């Protein structure tokens, strides 16, 4: 019988530790599929960040360096400069990338480092128990914004995909979601596109993935998926914000 579907080679045959309804597992799969597609698993060095995704070396069958909180783009810079033949990606959450690591992401992007950054935006600090993140929506209640995020005191959520698209070194910047089959198929396409930029050596590529955190949102998985459609996407629009054509 012909096999039509299988676990990506780049993904280990293990259970994840993620909560029910969390999107990390789905996003991991899409990333692994993209690695398989380009046949880069054996030359990939992943850079793990601090947060729920720190264990990515437990799930991806690739070499991994664990970075300090927010520093993954700087670590990836060192990796790529020392081993330019490697395929290098970081996988970071919103607290990691858009708060404590803003300097590192902006300057790695601006230098046009030939790496790919997967940015998982679930509007909260998941690992530490659901505190307010730089992407927390205005009015959203978290464990450190018990009255809801107040724009006058906490500022507005940061739209990283659009922000980075402004920078000269960025070749590709997109925002996707995995809350519906249609969005998931598009996410798969854009992650593949981002990887293609690096495979071809065309510069820095960035994909923001809107993601559910049912545990910290206090929502069931289906309600969490619905929240992405109803609350997140209106503020964080899906789309491609930068797509530099080949020089």
């Amino acid at each position, binding site marked *: 019988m012909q096999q039509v579907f299988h676990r990506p080679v780049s993904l280990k045959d293990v259970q994840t530790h993620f909560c029910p309804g969390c999107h990390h597992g789905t996003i991991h799969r899409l990333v692994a599929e993209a690695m398989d597609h380009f046949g880069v*698993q*054996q*030359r*990939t*060095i992943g*850079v*793990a960040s601090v947060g729920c995704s*720190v264990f990515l*070396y437990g799930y991806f*069958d*690739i*070499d*991994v*360096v*664990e*970075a*300090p909180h927010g*520093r993954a783009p*700087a*670590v*990836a*810079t*060192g*990796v*790529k*400069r*020392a*081993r330019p*033949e*490697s*395929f290098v990606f970081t996988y970071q959450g919103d607290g990691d990338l858009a708060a404590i690591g803003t*300097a*590192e992401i*902006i*300057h790695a992007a601006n*230098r046009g480092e030939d790496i790919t950054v997967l940015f998982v935006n679930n509007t909260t600090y998941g690992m530490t128990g659901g505190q307010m993140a730089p992407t927390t929506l205005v009015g959203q209640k978290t464990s450190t914004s018990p009255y809801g995020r107040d724009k006058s005191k906490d500022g507005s959520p940061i739209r990283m995909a659009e922000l980075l698209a402004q920078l000269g070194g960025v070749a590709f910047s997109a925002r996707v979601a995995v809350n519906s089959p249609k969005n998931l198929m598009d996410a798969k396409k854009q992650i593949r596109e981002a990887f293609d930029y690096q495979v071809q050596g065309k510069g820095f590529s960035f994909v923001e993935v809107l993601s559910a955190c049912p545990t910290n949102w206090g929502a069931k998985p289906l309600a969490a998926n619905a929240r992405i459609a109803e609350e997140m996407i209106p503020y964080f629009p899906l789309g491609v914000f930068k797509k530099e054509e080949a020089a």
Partner: protein
Amino acid sequence: MSKRLFVKGNEAAAMGAVEAGCRYYFGYPITPQSDIPEYLSRELPKLGGEFIQAESEIGAINMLLGASACGARAMTSSSSPGISLKQEGISYMAGSELPGVIINISRSGPGLGGIDASQSDYFQSVKGGGHGGYRILVLAPNSVQEMYDLTMHAFDLADLYRTPVMVLGDSVVGQMKEALVPNPRPARELPAKEWAVRGKQGGEQRVVKSLFLGDGELEAHNWHLHAKYQLMKERECISEEQQSSDATLLVVAFGSVSRIAQTAVALAREAGLKVGLFRPVTLFPFPEVALAQAAGKAGRVLVIELNTGQMVDDVRLCVGHGVEVSFYGRPPGAASLPSPEELFEVIRTRCQA
């Protein structure tokens, strides 16, 4: 005859790094060490290496972490406030057992302080510096020649023990010009870097990390690190003694102030005083055994530092109860560097006490 150059200490350190095979440098401008990135930004591209002026000290140390995780010889340099910012990365490198060389041409503090010669970063350098209870090897050159030689040595030690190594100087050793004989790197057997990430390339997965959550894992990891530090203490102590064999007062000083102390000791000898000099070259590991021996013979020790008393604690810990330890220090700042004559007076007073 090998060639002799007339260069600054900072340039000598950069040249030593290149001779040691370092091809990756990541740094951020700060006085008084900027000659190092300036030299390497010029030289590394010619050698097929990479120079990055990072967005921050934190960026620089983490680029070093990444390059080092790939097995490359890489370094960064900075000065005191910048080194404070790098401590997070140094702790992660120590925890992940990554080699790497960090040059600290230290300034005077605390805070923004000043750019004068200072040894106020002794504690920060030798006691761990960042969080988590680790140690790094610390080498303290006192000449332009040693800036070159010890930087070269630092790369071998880093690879041998899989640890960050700091070369600790100040504006005196960094900015002064002296003769330098740029000797070739001595051959040394070093273990293959079978831990370095490379992309699996058909082999086993390699992971460079400092997170250990399994039962007993982190404790075992810390005992493993501790055992390495014990091995360094046994094998890697370097110190220098001058006229210590018949001394009844032993001056202990490291780095820049040891040069001034050396002249003061010579003045004391001219005056007929039996004074010797002991200079720790490695600050971690601290040369406890050699110092205890020399101090025990002399019976009296005078510790001189460019701070209000830091290394003196380590001296007291190792010389034992029979030895009288006194201290003379000058906190850093403009016009605070003691002259040889001032130190001679301190020595003379101690000898008469």
